[in-house]
């Protein structure tokens, strides 16, 4: 069962989600007694691609056509399907990030390959091909059996271990006929939020709720996030009131995150919010209301005024980081 891994690059660099997918695909190939190959689409320096070998994959296909620097999931899906055929791949691995979520269903429909969206672990292949994923927005897990001959797995960010070696991958040019007219989606502008950590990939997240009283008070959240190298997030009422941008909303109807550490400040912990964050390895809650339901779900708690506790915590983190150097 050869494995093909889509290694998602952004402007020539790979993010953690891509390393996780490559590492997962390689472990899976080993488990199946088969080989893994990765594919990279668009302009990217060869040395960056060779370095994907660090995550175990011996061979990477590279389609260098600069048309692919513009993302159209249908064109990406078409190219990936061609690579699947060339490599006789039977399992295709994606990152379960924005691009992976866009391409995987198209590949699934083209190849009639069952897709497990957001895998949390390697498949159990003792009887078929069964993969664990989150359901009910983090409130439960399901074991999903893929019934089709070809299979697709997209790997949930921050959920699988990454194995690193000093191996380099062999880069092999991959060409398939694509033309400008294949692109039905034309990208006209890109806005990058500089200096922010994408939340699904963030290892630490500092999140604020209504307890912070207003958008003008977010400085204490940002300062703590900066001290920790963390991403910032918020609860739904905060995003709905326009205090913070929508993309920061975590919870059942926002995004689901699984960081190593989630710090909730002034968030009561409604069930919808907890569903989006309870995959976090550790949760810290800072709230002045000792009855806040979040305390029941957290690992560490402080009952106190956020406006006093958070700046104090920021200072203590800075002092700790100073000492580490």
């Amino acid at each position: 069962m050869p494995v093909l891994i889509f290694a998602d690059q952004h402007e020539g660099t790979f993010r953690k989600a891509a390393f996780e997918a490559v590492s997962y695909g390689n472990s899976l190939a080993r488990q199946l007694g088969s080989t893994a190959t990765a594919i990279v689409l668009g302009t990217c320096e060869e040395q960056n691609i060779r370095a994907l070998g660090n995550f175990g994959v011996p061979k990477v296909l590279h389609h260098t056509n600069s048309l692919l620097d513009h993302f159209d999931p249908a064109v990406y899906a078409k190219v990936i399907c061609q690579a699947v055929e060339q490599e006789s791949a039977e399992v295709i691995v994606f990152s379960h990030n924005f691009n992976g979520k866009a391409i995987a269903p198209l590949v699934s429909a083209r190849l009639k390959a069952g897709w497990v969206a957001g895998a949390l672990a390697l498949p159990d292949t003792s009887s078929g091909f069964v993969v664990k994923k989150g359901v009910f927005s983090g409130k439960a897990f399901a074991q999903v059996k893929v019934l089709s001959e070809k299979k697709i797995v997209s790997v949930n960010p921050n959920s699988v271990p990454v194995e690193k070696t000093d191996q380099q991958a062999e880069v092999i040019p991959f060409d398939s006929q694509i033309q400008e007219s294949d692109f039905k989606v034309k990208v006209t502008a890109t806005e990058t939020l500089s200096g922010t950590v994408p939340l699904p990939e963030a290892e630490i997240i500092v999140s604020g709720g209504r307890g912070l009283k207003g958008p003008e008070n977010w400085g204490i959240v940002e300062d703590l996030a900066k001290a920790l190298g963390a991403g910032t997030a918020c609860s739904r009422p905060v995003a709905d009131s326009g205090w913070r941008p929508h993309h920061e909303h975590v919870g059942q109807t926002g995004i689901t995150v699984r960081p190593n550490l989630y710090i909730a400040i002034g968030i009561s912990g409604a069930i919808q919010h907890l569903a989006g964050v309870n995959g976090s390895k550790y949760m810290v809650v800072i709230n002045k209301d000792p009855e806040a339901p979040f305390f029941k779900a957290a690992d560490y708690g402080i009952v106190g005024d956020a406006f006093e506790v958070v700046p104090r915590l920021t200072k203590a983190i800075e002092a700790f980081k100073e000492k580490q150097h």
Partner: protein
Amino acid sequence: MKILVCISKTPDTTAKITFTDNNTKFDEQGVQFIVNPSDEWYALVRALELKEALGGTVHLITVGGPDNDPVIRKALALGADDAIRVDTDASDGYYVAAQIAHCAREGGYDLLLTGKETIDYNGSGVGGMIAGILELPYISLATKLETEGNGEATVRREIEGGEEVCSVKLPAVISCMKGMAEQRIANVRNIMMAGRKPLKVVEPVDADKLTEIISFTLPEPKSGIKMIAPDNVEELVRLLHEEAKVI
């Protein structure tokens, strides 16, 4: 504009999740059902806004048994014109997409909208699979959708660490998320009318089921919280470093 909105029935966001039949089935007993939030708040409401601005019609489709009808009526009460229910079990994303694609092919829609994912099975795939089957352009996770009704749409979508603006020729399939529209509440007149709007029940077409859920588990409960005094944040830093090993 003729817009098809794909909707799904999901448990209310506050529902407690439990399983029956040896953890192989979701226990629906006592659970309130709603229209999946991103289907309703973003896809359907945006479709209604476009109809109000440009004229046209908004149609609903869902795949499932008669137990979906109350939820379809809720969506009709927001202002959609009519609905189709494909009368079959919606257990696999591809199977569902194949049913919707079959109906969409016959309907001649300008735009097909879905929510970004359902809050129950979190598959996030039906929209893309419909696009794949019908070979239509697909834009996922859109936060804005504008069209003048001239056969083209401008869409803003989320990407890793930013947003992208794209233009796409219609018909296209677009999955919608937060930012697209504001949640609406049905008015009394529409609620009264919803019961009389056409709800067509159709038989499924043959399609493969590519996946199957074999069992469910619930997360392990937390072992208990450690409380730290508000004037002793250094202790929290120590615990995060030495015990949790996350900093």
